[in-house]
């Protein structure tokens, strides 16, 4: 104690000295600033004095001037653990969605999982059931692929007359990331699938143990067990530490927090694939296992909620994607669909990924109806919502890939015009 006394007072003294020196330095600096401006600036060629910027940091953050954020659905009596948040598509550039803005849809909240204690078990109709640790999976040959991920309930607002107020609320349940992981086929081969294995059941470690069945043909094709997203580990809300990534198929089968894959001879008929993610038709039957997210596009800028500042040049830009492969063509209309012209596609155009399109528009200042329509490599062209409704009615809820029309009023306001 006696020995610490002087040392502490020395510390205090030095701190006081430092602070007083700091403040006097600051005062001097301000004085110098004032002096420079008032006295030296007019007849000196010195540059304007500048304060230093922020120091280096351990984990970056965006500019405090940027405010883009996910839209959290709170308009229904649904607990937030079972809700969704939507990507601000109108505020993103290029084809990659920042991980922090990737849409969310959970069924029992985001679990906090320690990767050191998490495992993936593959069993069922296999010769060698196996348990993998996360570290073991990272030792295997990895792949990185850019894929979109879209909730099948995206654009649900557009089935009926009102429509969404903007692109984010209407269509923000799609995002696109670079995913890193191992092919599921590699793991299934390691386990040796028996000849009667026709489906897999994928199950999450979330509190509600979300589960979906997937045909083995797809599982052996391009499905990934992903641990990386946009160069870093998956975000917790995207399935940390492991998720299934099922390219081009509805979001619900991309099981997050993946803990188990069971090889089956038939689908499990889980709640999600019977009572929920099925599409009710006008005759009362329901389509089941409607996995593909079909070709779709929308103009994200300008879009509803924007206001154009007078006639002149504007870039029309947006996103197109197809669960059946690559986008072959995107066309733009400015007259409500009477005439269409090809937009420029940002290259490389990747299969089952968001594809950025652009088209330079010279607005004449009069009312205009803007829309895009995508055609994929299979020759399928995105239909109008009206065409979909003719076939499916308005109660199928899911898989609305209809054309999105925006109305630009002569005063510059942009609104949803799907029903005009």
């Amino acid at each position, binding site marked *: 104690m006696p020995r610490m006394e002087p040392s502490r007072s020395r510390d205090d003294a030095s701190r006081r000295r430092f602070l007083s020196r700091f403040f006097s330095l600051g005062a001097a600096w301000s004085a110098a600033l004032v002096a420079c401006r008032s006295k030296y600036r007019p007849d000196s060629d010195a540059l304007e004095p500048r304060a230093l910027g922020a120091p280096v940091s351990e984990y970056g953050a965006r500019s405090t001037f940027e405010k883009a954020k996910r839209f959290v659905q709170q308009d229904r*009596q649904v*607990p937030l653990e*079972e809700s969704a948040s939507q990507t601000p598509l109108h505020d993103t550039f290029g084809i990659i969605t920042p991980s922090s803005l990737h849409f969310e849809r959970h*069924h029992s909240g985001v679990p906090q999982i320690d990767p050191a204690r998490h495992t993936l*078990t593959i*069993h069922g109709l296999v*010769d*060698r*059931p*196996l*348990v*993998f640790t996360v570290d073991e999976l990272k*030792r*295997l040959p990895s792949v990185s692929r850019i894929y979109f991920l879209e909730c099948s309930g995206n654009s649900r607002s557009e089935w009926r007359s009102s429509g969404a107020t903007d692109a984010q609320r209407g269509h923000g349940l799609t995002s696109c990331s670079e995913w890193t992981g191992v092919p599921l086929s*590699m793991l299934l*081969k*390691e386990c*040796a*699938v*028996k*000849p009667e*294995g026709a489906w897999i059941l994928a*199950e999450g470690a979330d*509190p*509600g*143990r*979300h*589960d979906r069945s997937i045909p083995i043909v797809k599982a052996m094709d391009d499905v990934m067990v992903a641990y990386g997203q946009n160069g870093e580990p998956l975000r917790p809300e995207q399935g940390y530490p492991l998720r299934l990534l099922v390219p081009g198929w509805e979001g619900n089968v991309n099981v997050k927090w993946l803990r*188990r894959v*069971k090889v089956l001879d*038939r689908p*499990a*008929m*889980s*709640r999600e694939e*019977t*009572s929920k993610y*099925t599409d*009710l038709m*006008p*005759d*009362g*039957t*329901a*389509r*089941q*296992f*409607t*996995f*593909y997210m*079909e070709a779709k596009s929308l103009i994200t800028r300008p879009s509803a909620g924007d206001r154009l500042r007078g006639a002149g040049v504007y870039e029309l830009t947006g996103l197109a994607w197809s669960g059946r492969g690559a986008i072959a063509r995107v066309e733009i209309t400015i007259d409500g669909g009477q005439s269409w012209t090809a937009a420029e596609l940002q290259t490389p155009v990747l299969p089952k990924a968001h594809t950025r399109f652009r088209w330079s528009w010279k607005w004449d200042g009069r009312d205009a109806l803007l829309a895009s329509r995508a055609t994929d490599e*299979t*020759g*399928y*062209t995105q*239909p109008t919502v009206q065409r*979909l409704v003719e*076939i499916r009615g308005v*109660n199928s809820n899911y*898989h609305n890939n209809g054309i999105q029309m925006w109305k630009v009023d002569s005063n510059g306001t942009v609104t949803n015009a799907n029903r005009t």
Partner: protein
Amino acid sequence: MQIGRSQGSPKGLRYRVGIIVGAVAVLVAILVAQAFRPAIEPAVAQSPTFGIGRAPTAEELKAIDIDVFPDGRGLPPGRGTARAGRETYTSRCVTCHGPTGTEGPQDILAGGQGSLNTSAPLKTVGSYWPFATTLWDYLRRAMPFDHPGTLTTDQVYATTAYVLFLNGIVGEDDVLDETTLPRVKMPNRDGFVGDPRPDIPVKKK
């Protein structure tokens, strides 16, 4: 004809060449088939490539192998009736689903039969769900929403029975167990079809 035959070397030669060509073709076909054999090799012949991972223990598998199939596979022994399930429903389910399963505020569980082909379809367990086993699986897997995994096996059987009772599908004292539950025929059992898409005509390039 006779002469032709006795002198018939051209025809006979062609015949013999034909046989040789045929034999070679068969041989080639066999070789080609051999070459492509690995592609259709049965899975049992595969050996591990990476030797990573370990075999799960029987206990580990039992703890996570929770899925239940329409034919009853996966159902553990146990039993319950709607009468017994009323108590669990009232204490654990009623705040979200209402006293009779029709009030909400969360998913409506009962009613709606005959509404699926109308302009206001009501999708409930009774009107929409094709399998009673799925209800059992989901109750054990994910319910109650705020405390999943807390119902006992008999409570799951009983609560399943109660929700089916609210829909008029089973009687109040019908016993549901691993044998009787898969036999419950749901009203919308045959209401599902496969995916016919693309349902918009595709233009061939």
